[in-house]
């Protein structure tokens, strides 16, 4: 079974802090994604990556950056956390063709105070 793990289930940070969210997948998938999930808005794509050291902006990249130094690991970075970044963050991965199923991690619920 594909397994996507995220470093924290719950995280509480202060406004202005730098925040790192880590995601690791164990199935050698080429593609990795970061989404945020907010009530009534579904999931919105922040950034994605098709290969190591490669990144593409999604629909809501402002205030975020990413890093992919190894194939299995994709990090989301909040350079200076703000209260409007309080949300559930979901990582996903998929193989080859992007029309394939994406496999999701359990999510990190981030609260910025």
């Amino acid at each position: 079974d594909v397994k996507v793990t995220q470093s924290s289930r719950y995280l509480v940070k202060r406004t202005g802090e730098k925040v790192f969210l880590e995601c690791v997948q164990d199935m050698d998938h080429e593609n990795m994604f970061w989404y945020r999930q907010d009530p009534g808005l579904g999931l919105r794509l922040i950034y994605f990556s098709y290969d190591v050291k490669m990144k593409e902006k999604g629909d809501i990249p402002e205030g975020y950056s990413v890093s992919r130094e190894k194939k299995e690991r994709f990090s989301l970075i909040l350079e200076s956390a703000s209260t409007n970044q309080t949300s559930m963050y979901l990582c996903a991965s998929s193989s080859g063709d992007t029309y394939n199923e994406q496999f999701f991690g359990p999510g990190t619920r981030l609260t910025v105070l």
Partner: protein
Amino acid sequence: AQSVTQLDSHVSVSEGTPVLLRCNYSSSYSPSLFWYVQHPNKGLQLLLKYTSAATLVKGINGFEAEFKKSETSFHLTKPSAHMSDAAEYFCVVVAYTGKLIFGQGTTLQVKP
């Protein structure tokens, strides 16, 4: 541009009765469509997917969905709800870029 609309934010059914979760899509070409389910405190799991083969798609846990091009719909159904079906359900259209576009989600409540 592709988009997807889930017509109900909340659906409540009694255990043993049918489930209908409605989804309409907009696409300038024949799309690929998914349904995902998210149980409380869990990640999203793929229920089923349509990729231009049979229009009636069967998924896990007794769910199925029918692709209707004339109605631009991809409604999710199950003949008999179980308590374990209580979750949030997302309809997804695959954009021409390969990105997934999610609907707003439908929360399914199952009453005993």
